[in-house]
């Protein structure tokens, strides 16, 4: 397995606050990686730096052998690095189906050098809606969706960019037991089709079920990286989560 994403010495500070401090991380192609950490540990900042929403100050992010530093977010998405947002950010004036068409038109079509026909776009959109179970909502507007469907839409839009690496930032917060299982199953299915997935989550049941490898961030540092069962028994991780 070769490394799809390579992060070395990544650093980011907001004024005097060090949000990320020398993060080193490798993600292999086809892997399912879980990323956990207490609130404020820098998980979302890491995602933002990986995806170009924020610019990192130190270190490099390498994706498929290309250094991404300074590259705008939309170019990264086109290269195959997509993310969902922690709080869903749908395009409010568009229908659910149109929401999914945006990445198809702007990322997938671009990769196909403009060869994606209107019929193909419709077809892929339809397929995605079926995959996440939003077919009945295709013509609805995001404001009419339930919280679960909104999160599904957020995930579906990230998936619509047909990424090689998908970063799901707390896609399950606030969902019920069975809804969490639904989304985990969805992500595993996506992974089986060849997409590498990084899952950021607080719900341990979901993380443990999903991850092949687990990374723990605390106060902007990586304190553990390894097999999930071993990582959660790590005394340092226990201390960070439970306190002593």
């Amino acid at each position: 397995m070769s490394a799809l994403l390579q992060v070395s010495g990544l650093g980011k500070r907001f004024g005097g606050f060090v949000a990320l401090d020398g993060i080193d991380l490798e993600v292999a192609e086809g892997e399912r990686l879980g990323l956990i950490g207490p609130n404020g540990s820098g998980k979302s900042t890491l995602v933002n730096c990986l995806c170009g929403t924020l610019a990192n100050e130190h270190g490099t992010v390498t994706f498929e052998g290309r250094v991404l530093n300074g590259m705008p977010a939309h170019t990264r998405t086109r290269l195959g690095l997509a993310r969902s947002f922690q709080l869903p950010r749908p395009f409010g004036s568009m229908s659910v189906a149109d929401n999914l068409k945006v990445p198809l038109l702007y990322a997938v079509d671009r990769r196909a050098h403009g060869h994606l026909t209107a019929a193909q776009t419709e077809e892929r959109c339809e397929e995605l809606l079926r995959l996440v179970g939003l077919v009945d909502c295709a013509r609805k507007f995001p404001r009419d969706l339930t919280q679960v469907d909104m999160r599904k839409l957020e995930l579906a839009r990230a998936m619509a960019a047909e990424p090689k690496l998908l970063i799901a930032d707390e896609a399950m917060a606030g969902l019920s037991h069975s809804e969490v299982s639904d989304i985990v199953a969805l992500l595993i299915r996506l992974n089986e089709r060849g997409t590498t997935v990084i899952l950021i989550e607080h719900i341990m049941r979901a993380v443990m079920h999903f991850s092949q490898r687990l990374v723990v961030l605390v106060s902007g540092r990586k304190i553990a990286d390894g097999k999930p069962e071993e990582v959660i028994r790590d005394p340092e991780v226990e201390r960070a989560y439970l306190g002593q």
Partner: protein
Amino acid sequence: MRNPTFFAAAIGAAAAVFIVAALIGNDYLFFAGYTVVQYIVLAAAWNMLGGYCGYVNFGTAAFFALGAYTTVFFHKAYPLPIPVLLVIAAGVSGLVGLGTGYLTLRLRGAFFSIATLALAVVLQTFVVNWDYVGGSRGAYVIRPDSVDVFGFQLDYVRYLSLIMLLLAAVSVAISRAIERSKLGYGFATIRDDELAAEASGVPTLRLKLIATTLSGALMGMAGAPFPYYIGYVEPASTFGLTYAVNAIAMPLIGGTTVWFGPLIGSILLGTLTQIATVTISSAVNLLLVGLLLVGFVIVAPNGLVGLIREFLRAASPGRPDVRSIGLVAVASYGFIVGVLEVVFSLAALTAPDATGLMLAFAGLVLACLWIVSAYGMMTLQRWSPLMATIAFALSIVVGAIHIWADRTAFNISLWGAGGAVAIVSLWFLQRRYVQQLYRPKLTELEVAA
């Protein structure tokens, strides 16, 4: 309709309007019509950035004046035919749009708007101090009497009107083409959420630059024939607030998210201000525009188009049917006649004698009743049919009083027509199938009973 077909249809419609106006043969019609059509172009251009991308531009006057002063410059340096001037003005304003966009588009919301306002001030100062184009004393541009178009001798004002009509057709066609294209999707994502747009692969900065360039170029083109139309341009009025305010008010009143919103808004508001200029005074224009703008922002923030869409969605969730479209037609009529009635009543107030005052008062009441019942019909979910019915019934009474007070032949036929429409509307409102549109409200009442 496909884009080329629509484009041809728009040009055809523009030509038809021109031919009808030429058959009527009134020179004033062309003179007033030019201003209205000019606002169609400005509103459509503003909407490309303001409506589609959500970036409110207060600098419409700057781009408009840039086009006008391009013409003034060439009129002095090397007179060129208007179509060539249009192209040059588009180039100049488009470039300024691109440059301004590059410098200011990193600003969001109010900050971007302030920057565009600053652009207008900077350009105005520049023109005031540029003696060659007249400086602050202005410049005279004498227009020829007529022009030779493909062998036809055409009066110059008519020629300018024709050009402006074609330009309006082009800008409306461009708006519509954008809205239904990949670019339109991209613009809408910028309006909704720029961060999410970037994450979906939309190159937001590039799209915003396209929007500012296109919008600026069209505004410049709208300004290019202006010096020939008006005959004298000076900075204070060419950079005037009127253009900026109208270019914002028209799309907002019509509806900003669809191409026909600015079209409806500019025709409605443009005609209204022209009527007010003649019947009251040119100073009341901006007051009317301001009042309407405030009213719409409160009552219908998505403009007329948004109000009608919302209504159709509530009334018939599937497809719009005859009864809901009938209601829309009646409501639109009530609304437009109501607004016009306000304008004419204000005109009567300028000559204050006892009868005039009473007529104006009755007219204002009538106008309010019509507008209110139109609004009531459009918001079925919140209004009971009773309210719209009462409003219409009252309008018949007030209308009758109006006729009685002012028994000239013209008014009797006018108010007779108004009363007839009110009676037909009343009958229509009482139909069982129309009442069913109010079902949510009715069942609520039944449950309460």
